[in-house]
């Protein structure tokens, strides 16, 4: 048996690949559920109903998906240009803490209309700055950004821990390390009453469409793709490599910072050191599941969010640890990578 490169990627296969991958991942996860001694079909049914079975569960899934769409886009945009931004988690936290600090200290008493747009900008800029440092190191000294962005996650998280246990500590939180709450006027409007769902979802989806447009239709999109696919040819064709990567990094870091922003302003209202259940890292998975397609990111984020919300409910009723969600998402990433491989190669006997 051997693999041969396909001349053409059949369109049907490209569309079917993620679905087959997810199905395969669920099947393998089913084996694990069975090994843990729970009824497999019931467990799946619980995951499904817990994620989509009621008004509450649907809004919870969508609330979870909102920051995931943004971190997923952050990874997808960067990876397209072969900028390996693994630092989404750190950028998420830096965006979150910047917004919390600004709202609590600077904008106290401002109106919503004045505060919220400024806070979005502040959160995005914080994420940007954190990614521009590794990019500068790469362009100036050829330092591998996989390492620097990854390690900056820990720097960023520890920095946030320091602030929320120090200068930004909420005196009313009974000693818990959490930041002062953001101004009430800074909270994002809800999409639905009696839910946690906020306008961040609409914004995230709109941004996904905007990025799809930018990548497929604009000069910058073509250039960033060229820079990623073949830097030497791109330079020969006059693509300003450094400038293109800087813009890509600003978009990518900005989106991850924005994810932290909407999570603080839309859901929590303050920053703790467990604000993110790994949204930055899951964003990488989401981007890969979507094969770096911005619109696919929306669907992949929904799937991932549904798995996490569904697994919470499932574990309560059939007694399987919620880790099964992590395992399933990880398995779907692996099977997606295999599926993508098979859209490019075929098996020869």
């Amino acid at each position: 048996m051997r693999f041969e490169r396909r001349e053409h990627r059949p369109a049907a296969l490209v569309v079917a690949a993620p679905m087959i991958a997810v199905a395969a991942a669920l099947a393998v996860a089913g084996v694990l559920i069975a090994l843990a001694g729970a009824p497999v079909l019931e467990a799946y049914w619980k995951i499904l109903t817990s994620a989509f079975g009621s008004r509450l569960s649907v809004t919870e899934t969508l609330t979870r998906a909102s920051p995931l769409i943004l971190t997923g886009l952050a990874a997808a945009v960067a990876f397209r240009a072969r900028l390996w931004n693994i630092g989404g988690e750190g950028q998420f936290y830096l965006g979150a803490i910047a917004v919390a600090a600004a709202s609590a200290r600077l904008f106290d008493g401002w109106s919503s209309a004045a505060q919220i747009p400024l806070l979005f900008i502040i959160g995005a800029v914080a994420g940007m700055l954190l990614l521009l440092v590794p990019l500068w190191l790469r362009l100036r000294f050829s330092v591998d950004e996989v390492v620097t962005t990854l390690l900056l996650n820990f720097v960023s998280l520890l920095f946030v821990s320091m602030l929320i246990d120090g200068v930004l500590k909420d005196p009313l939180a009974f000693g818990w390390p959490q930041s002062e709450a953001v101004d009430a006027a800074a909270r994002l409007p809800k999409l639905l009453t009696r839910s946690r769902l906020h306008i961040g979802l609409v914004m995230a989806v709109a941004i996904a469409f905007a990025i799809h447009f930018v990548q497929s239709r604009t000069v910058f999109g073509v250039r960033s793709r060229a820079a990623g696919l073949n830097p030497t040819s791109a330079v020969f064709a006059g693509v300003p490599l450094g400038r293109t990567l800087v813009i890509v990094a600003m978009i990518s870091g900005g989106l991850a910072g924005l994810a932290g922003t909407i999570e603080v302003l839309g859901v929590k209202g303050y920053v703790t050191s467990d604000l993110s259940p790994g949204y930055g890292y899951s964003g990488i998975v989401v981007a890969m599941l979507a094969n770096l397609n911005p619109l696919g990111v929306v669907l992949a984020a929904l799937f991932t969010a549904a798995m996490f919300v569904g697994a919470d409910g499932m574990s309560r009723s059939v007694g399987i640890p919620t880790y099964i969600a992590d395992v399933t998402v990880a398995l779907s990433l692996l099977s997606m990578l295999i599926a993508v491989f098979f859209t490019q190669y075929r098996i020869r006997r």
Partner: protein
Amino acid sequence: MTGPVLELDRISKQFGDNLANHDISLNLAKGEIVALLGENGAGKTTLMSILFGHYMPDSGKVTVMGRELPPGKPRAAIRAGVGMVHQHFSLAPNLTVLENVMTGTESLWLPASNAAAGRKKLLEISERFGLKVDPDARLGDLSVGEQQRVEILKALYNDARILVLDEPTAVLTRIEADKLFSTLKDMARQGLSLIFISHKLDEVMATADRIVVLRGGKLVAERKREETSKAELAELMVGRAVKRPVRDASTPGEVVLEAIGVTVRTGGVDRLKSVDFRLRAGEVLGIIGVSGNGQATLAQLLSGTAQRSAGSLVLFGEETADLTVADAVTSGIGRIPEDRNREGVIGEMTIWENAILERLSRFSRLGLVDRKAGVAFAARIIQAFDVRGGSPTSRVRLLSGGNMQKLILGRNLIEPPRILLAAQPARGLDEGAVAAVHQRILEARRAGTAILLISEDLDEVMALADRIQAIVGGRLSPSLDAEDADARSLGLMMAGEWEEREVVDAV
């Protein structure tokens, strides 16, 4: 003589709709050198991949020393004594020569590698065939020619009796190639049997005992070297008589580009040292030289990807500041890069995107790419330059080398440029495609384009250039009119002889 050492019997192989090999039979005797001649895409590499077990044939069988090989098993082929030297080496640049040679020859479960025995065997082989190497050199530090030697040694180390070389000279300079062929002949004298794949008539005629011509997946002819000629082989290979076009007389126009004392310094080294040249409208200036003497930098300078550190560049009568890629493209410099795949195109992008990438500002408004105009532009190129194998929206990766080059030529020539920089424009192309590329260059010359042709191929330069300068160690020789040039004078120029003459004149 005890029968053939290798027999390929009625091999057929189909990829999709493409019949890569159709009913091909071939044999090889002990001590014989057979050349497998054919254009790109004729099925040479597929046939050898079947022999070596990389591909399974759809039908037919391979027999080595009277024993049939199981299909699709490279290990079995190696054990039967077949060695393959790939065009793109399958070596690890971070390992030493000895480590590379021994990789895969020992069981992974051995507690320790028996490097001492390996070294002894390697040195014996290297001695016997006159293939000198340093076993402890890191492979990445070796030149391409030396790396190829290692690849050959690796095959011999595995006790190969039959050696297959896939386009061995594609990456070599002329001198290295000559050396390689004398080594191959020596190996044949010592009883090895060799097959080499090539589309170069000169080397086939100089080296092979027997020549097998493939065309369109079929074996079209088999000739003994003494019974054939270059002209016949060329015709057999292409299927019709091809003649490379030759320039006709012309009167050059005004000077469009002049370099005065230009020095380019990159990475702390002067790659070009105070070079002077003038380029006139409607003429071809040929720059010859052994590769690695500054050609790449000269091409980069005019492409806008390298900047000079001293001297001046006068473009259309005006002194230029730093020349960027955008300046070059908008001022009418067409650019054919030396390495198609690395610099010229982006394989994963579409043909239309590749066609307009260097002219994005023209094919966009307010930052939005005008896809329709881009596709139309690509369609015009495809039509006018006979690019086969893709539509404007298919990916460039699917095109053959010749068609990629036509696309690159097309995007530069469809609107006649004032200057054309052509770096190794025909490298790696088959006879038919070479003729087509030369034809286009001469058409541009007739239309008044000034052409700077950088090439290692003397035949190409002699056929196309009006004047010739040699590049040696980053310096340019004075120019020589093509009428006064012959192989000897050019050889002296490429060896840097002109400098000595200047010294003599000075005394």
